[in-house]
C-alpha cells in the first residue's frame, strides 16, 4: 500500500542515466530499454532511499508548477507502475 510516508529506493541492478532530460533505464531481466519522460526522470532522480512519497510529490509540484492534488495523483500512479516493473523498492517506516 502506497502512502505519503512510504520510502522508495531504486532497484540497484538497473543501470540508468539521464540523457537530454530523459531517464534511460536498462531492464536486464526483461531485456528492455525503458525511457522515462522529463517528469518521470525527475521522479526517478528524486528516489534515493531517503525521500518519502510526500517529499517527491512536493518536489514535482514545485518543479513543474502544478497543483498538489494533480502532482499527488500523477506521482502515485507513476510509482505504482515502477513498482509493478520491479524498478523500485518501497517500504513504510513506523
Amino acid at each position, binding site marked *: 500500500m502506497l502512502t505519503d510516508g512510504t520510502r522508495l529506493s531504486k532497484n540497484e541492478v538497473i543501470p540508468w542515466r539521464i540523457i537530454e532530460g530523459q531517464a534511460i533505464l*536498462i531492464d536486464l531481466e526483461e*531485456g528492455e530499454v525503458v525511457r522515462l519522460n522529463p517528469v518521470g526522470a525527475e521522479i526517478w532522480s528524486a528516489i534515493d532511499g531517503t525521500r518519502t512519497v510526500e517529499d517527491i510529490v512536493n518536489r514535482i509540484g514545485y518543479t513543474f508548477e502544478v497543483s498538489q492534488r494533480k502532482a499527488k495523483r500523477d506521482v502515485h500512479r507513476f510509482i505504482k507502475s515502477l513498482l509493478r516493473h520491479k524498478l523500485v523498492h518501497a517500504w513504510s517506516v513506523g
Partner: protein
Amino acid sequence: MSSAARSATAVAASSVQASVLGKAEDSLVGARSIGNVLTMEDHDDAYYAWRQCGFRERILVHIDSHMDWDWLREHDPRDLLQAQTLTELDAMLKEQRRWTLSLRDRLDPIHIGNYIQPALREGIVREFYWVFPDVAISRTGEPSGILRMLRRMMRVNPSGLRNLRLRDRRIHFEIDGQPVTACTLANLPRLSEPVLLDIDTDFFTAEPTEYVGTGRSGHDRWRQLPWIWPEELLVALRSKELRTEFVTIAYSVEGGFTPLSYKYLGDELAARLLHPVLPEPDQSISAHKRMGAWYRHFGFLEQAIAEFKAAAALAPEDASCRFNLAYLHDEQGAYEEAGACYQHAVRLDPAYATAYNNFGQNFQFLSLLDRAQAEYERILRWDPQHVDARLGLAESWTQQEHWEQAQWQYQAVLDSCPDHPDANRELGRVYMERGLWEKAILQLKRAIVLEPAEGSTHARLGHAYYALDQWNEAMEAYQASVRYGFRSVSLYLRLGGLYLGKRALYKAWRQYRKGVRLAGRIMLVFLLTVARAVRRKFSREFHDAHGWHQALQERSDPLADH
C-alpha cells in the same frame, strides 16, 4: 586421404611456426608448390591459425558458398548508456545484432558463421574478397540473391555495413569502414600482393537456391556432381595470378554443407596446392574417383563401383573410397558388402560415423519424409547402433505423427544412450501427444536435468502440468521457459490465463499483449515466405526453360574421352 593430401596437412602442421617468423615464401597458386596448407573441419579454425601465425593487415580471399560473416554481439547492454544524445542512443539501438539486452543471453562465441568479423576487427585482415559460386548468379547475370542478403544485413546494422553498390558485376561495400568485394571467380580482380587464401569445400558442391531439394541432381543428392572441380578452381586462380603462402581449407561436412561423399575434394585441393602437377599414384586415384562420381551420376553403378575399387586399391587407407563404395553397394542391394565398406571407412577415419553421413536431415527439412527415412534406414543397416540415424528416424516418425513408432525409436536411442537430452525431451513430447501426462512429466524433468537451459522443454513441462490442472507447477515451468528465452504464442496465452486466475490483471494483460504481437510477427513472416516461394517458382521455371543444367553437364564430361 591420398598420400599427397596427407603430406600437405603434415607440412602445414610443421610449418605454421615458419610463417610466424615470416620465412614462408609466397607462390603463384596452381603453378608453384604452396607449403602451408591447413585442412580443418570447422572453418573458424582458420581465424585461430591466422592469429597464431601473427598475420597483420592482409588481404583475405575467401572462396565459399557462404560469406561466413556476421556481427558478434560485442557490447554489454550497459554500454548503451555511453550515448551522449537520444539520437545517438536510437542509432545504437538500431544495430540490433550488436546488443543483447538481456544478460541471460551469453555473448555470441566465434563460430563458423562469423569468424571473419573478428579477423577484420583485430587487424589480421584489412581487405576482404568473398568469391561466391557461379550458381548464385541470377538469370540476368546479376548476383541479385547476394545483393538481397547484403541489404538485409544493412537493415540490421546500418552503420556497420555501408556504401553497398554493384559495379562491373562485383558487389562493393564497407564493413566497419573496411573494403569488401563479393564476386564470382571470373570477376575476381588481379591482386598485387600475396593473400590469405581461405577455401570451403562446399564451394565445389553448391547448388542454386531455387534448386535446393529439387537439385540438378534431382531428388537424389547422392548423385550430385560438383559444379567445379579442384583443378578447375586452381586454373581459374592461376589465371588471376593469385599469390599466397598460406591456405586454409575447411571440409564443412558437419552441419550438412559439404556432402560427406565429397569431403575428399578438400584433400584433393590440398594435394594439388602442394603439388601443382599431382604425382602418381595420386593422379590416378583422383581420376578413378572422378570417373566413379560421373558413373554414379548417370546411374552406372557397376562401373562406379569398379572405379572406386580401383581408387581404393591404390589408396588402401583412403576412407572416402570405402564410404562411396558403401553407398553404391547399398544401392545395388548388397547390404552386407555395403555395411562392411562403411565399417572399413569408419575404422580408417572415425569422422565418417558423423550424423551428416546421409541426407536424412536435408530431406526432413524439405518435408520429404519418405526419403529421409530411407536415408536413416540405410545408415542403420550399416550400423544398427548409430544413435543420430536412430534419432533422425524417430523425429521423422514424430513429424508424421506416428507416435507409437516414434516412441519405440526414441526408447531405442535411450537404451543405448540414456543421457541423450534430445531423446528424453522428444520422448516426453510423444507421451504428451499420447495423453500420458504423468510419464511425460517424468521424461521432461529428466531432460531438464540434462539440459537445464533449454526453454522449450520447460514450456512442454508447463503444458503437461496445465493439462493436469496443476496451475502453480504449470506457471513455474512457463516462467522458467521465458527465463531461458523460449517464446511461443500458446505459452504467452496460457501464462496470461494463469495470471488472470490469480487476479494478477496487469501481468496477465502483458502476457496477452506479447502473445498477440508474436502472432502478428509470425503471420507477417508466413506471408513473406509465401510471396518468396511464389517468386522462386516462377524463377525456377524460367531457369528450366533455358536449360543451363544441360550446359553445366556439357562443360567437361570426362566420360567422353575415357
